[in-house]
């Protein structure tokens, strides 16, 4: 299954090759032009009916993870985070290191030996390390080197009522949606762009947008979802199973209101459930896309993901399907020229 393959591949920001290769293999027979740019972005073009405006749909390929910074005398591996990770989720986990996916564990001090005041504090990243079962620097160095990327060890699992647990749902879910669109949409001209290094500063999106120079962009994402009990609804960014989340604003973009309203109109017309992404926290590739060259219009449509940036992100297959339906309906409107009317 596509999403399983994509989420189980490792693609920490700056090291997207494994994911990129999967995507290229999936789409190469369905596009008219395929280019890997200097940063590693995939820029695919589907040539269909001519359109007055250029549409670009993007999803970032990279995921948050860790990077090896040192190996100590006893063979323990020190690391730093790549992208926004709450260090607290790292404790008592298994990981894969480097291209050979060497298994390792991140442990912690036994509860028996902790002082009372220690228990109230998170364990600092400086006090965490990876253990691969070796006892010396020399031994560890046979398997691991400084600069190796580290991913969470987490399998794709379906559970509950049509839910999925996996790592890197942010943003393999966007990649999966875009791959499906590229495969299934016929006779419409658009760019499908898979970007690198979103998680470390939206690095890939700018140069890609510079090259494509789009009029309208739709950014596909897996986004924040924290629908826990007993908090005010205005503090809940999105809910699972309430459909695709349409962004209002975040730290990098105030999304174009007319485009957003058109998208909502399309959802209503097609009877597709939708919700707004209510948090203004976080950001995405739109930040560097809508300000590139003379600027352009963007919208972000996301699948809500619980526990984002952790090894155990959760999303709903129903949300995925509804997001896909909404995207097809948007492209239909684009094909008819209605989406770009007024821009």
């Amino acid at each position, binding site marked *: 299954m596509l999403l399983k393959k994509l989420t189980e591949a490792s693609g920490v920001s700056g090291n997207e090759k494994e994911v990129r290769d999967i995507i290229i293999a999936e789409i190469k027979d369905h596009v008219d032009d395929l280019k890997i740019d200097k940063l590693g972005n995939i820029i695919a073009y589907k040539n269909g009916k001519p359109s007055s405006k250029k549409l670009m749909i993007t999803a970032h390929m990279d995921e948050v993870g860790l990077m090896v910074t040192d190996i100590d005398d*006893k063979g*323990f591996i020190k690391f730093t985070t790549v992208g*926004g*990770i*709450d*260090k*607290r*989720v790292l*404790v*008592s*986990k*298994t990981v894969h290191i480097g291209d050979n996916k*060497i*298994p390792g*564990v991140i*442990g*912690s*001090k*036994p*509860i*028996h*030996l*902790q002082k009372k005041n220690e*228990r*109230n*504090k*998170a364990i600092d990243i400086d*006090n965490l*390390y990876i*253990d*691969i*079962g*070796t*006892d010396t620097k020399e*031994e560890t160095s046979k398997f691991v080197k400084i600069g190796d990327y580290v991913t969470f060890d*987490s399998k794709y*699992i379906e*559970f*509950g*009522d*049509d*839910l999925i*647990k996996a790592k890197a749902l942010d943003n393999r879910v966007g990649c999966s949606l875009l791959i499906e669109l590229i495969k299934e949409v016929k006779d419409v001209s658009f760019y499908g762009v898979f970007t690198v290094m979103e998680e470390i500063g939206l690095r890939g999106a700018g140069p890609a947008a510079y090259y494509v120079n789009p009029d309208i962009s739709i950014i596909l994402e897996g986004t*924040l*979802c*924290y*629908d*826990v*009990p007993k908090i005010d609804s205005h*503090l809940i*960014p999105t809910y699972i199973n309430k459909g695709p989340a349409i962004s209002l604003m975040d730290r990098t973009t105030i999304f174009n209101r007319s485009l957003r309203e058109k998208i909502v109109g399309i959802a209503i017309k097609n009877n597709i459930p939708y919700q707004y992404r209510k*948090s203004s926290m*976080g950001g995405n590739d739109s930040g560097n896309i809508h300000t590139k060259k003379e600027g352009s219009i963007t919208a972000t449509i996301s699948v809500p993901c619980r*526990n*984002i*940036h*952790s*090894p*155990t992100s*959760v999303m709903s297959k129903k949300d995925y399907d509804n997001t896909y339906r909404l995207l097809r309906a948007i492209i239909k409107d684009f094909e008819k020229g209605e989406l770009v009317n007024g821009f």
Partner: protein
Amino acid sequence: MNTKEFLSELCNSHSVSGHESGIVELIESAFSKYADKISVDKLGNVIILKKGKNNFSNSKIMIAAHMDEIGLIVKSIEENGFIKFSNIGGVDPRTILSQEVTVHGNKDLFGVIVSKPPHLQEESENEKAIMMDELYIDLGYDNNEVNSYVNVGDVITINREIKELKGDRLAGKSLDDKAGIASMYECIKELSKIEHELDIYFVCTVQEEVGLRGAITSTYNINPDFGVAIDVGFGSTPELPKRDTIDMGMGPAITIGGYIHPKLREKIVEIAKEYNIPFQYEVAPGSIGTDANAIQITREGIPTLNLSIPLRYMHTSVEVVDMKDIRNTAKLLAFFIASITNDDLEGLLCY
């Protein structure tokens, strides 16, 4: 069965304190080939008897390793179907964030422990430890469906399949103290190849993690001439002072202290040296905190030894042991047992 496979199967199964029955069959099927008799007592302890060669009024040794593991328990089901929970045994809440779990309801249900995305956290929120009562389990079902599968009081375990690391080391949950069970298994295999006079009672004890309960009743029942607890000891890691730890791969630690019978301890050290089995010392002037505590003061008092298998990251889901240490613990124990005759035991135990 291969000892590593047996151990992996034990750890991949679940046996939260008070709910150990799920692994009894696995233990019985492994040990039965070498045992004369296997029984399960009222609390659920599995008692495996291997008789000595005279088969009549032999002295008795009891060897104990606990079969229970720490875990979680369902406290309530929230309106949206999320589960609130508490711990059974010493669980550090900081080790369970973002874990995958199994809720053992009417059927086993997959779930994850919910975490707050970093994007929504206040500044320096991630400097604070998460408390157990701030956490939820997401089973992916609504309240109605969760209620049809799950009851308050159901136990929960962290999902962690055993992982092989470099150098014959394993990582996983509940190696504390399934590593001890595995070394008893390796020991009974060794003893099937050598002659011994003592009757040996291997006991897989229950509820050690919540107060050594299984050891209390099984020792009373067996009333051994002496006992040995096999548990795990703190394997050395950078954040722990050397004096609190033992080294991985350097053999079992023989405990020294008031809870330990001094002459028996001297004898086992002698055997280790005689057979060139690596060993180390672990000093516990007072409580050891293992089944040895319970064994020592059963009935009129029972001479007791304690062996610790080095284990890193105790009570996390990524505990690490070295198979070499498990094998050396078994070997030491087997040779020690074989070296003791009914006749010389009295001399060995007298002060």
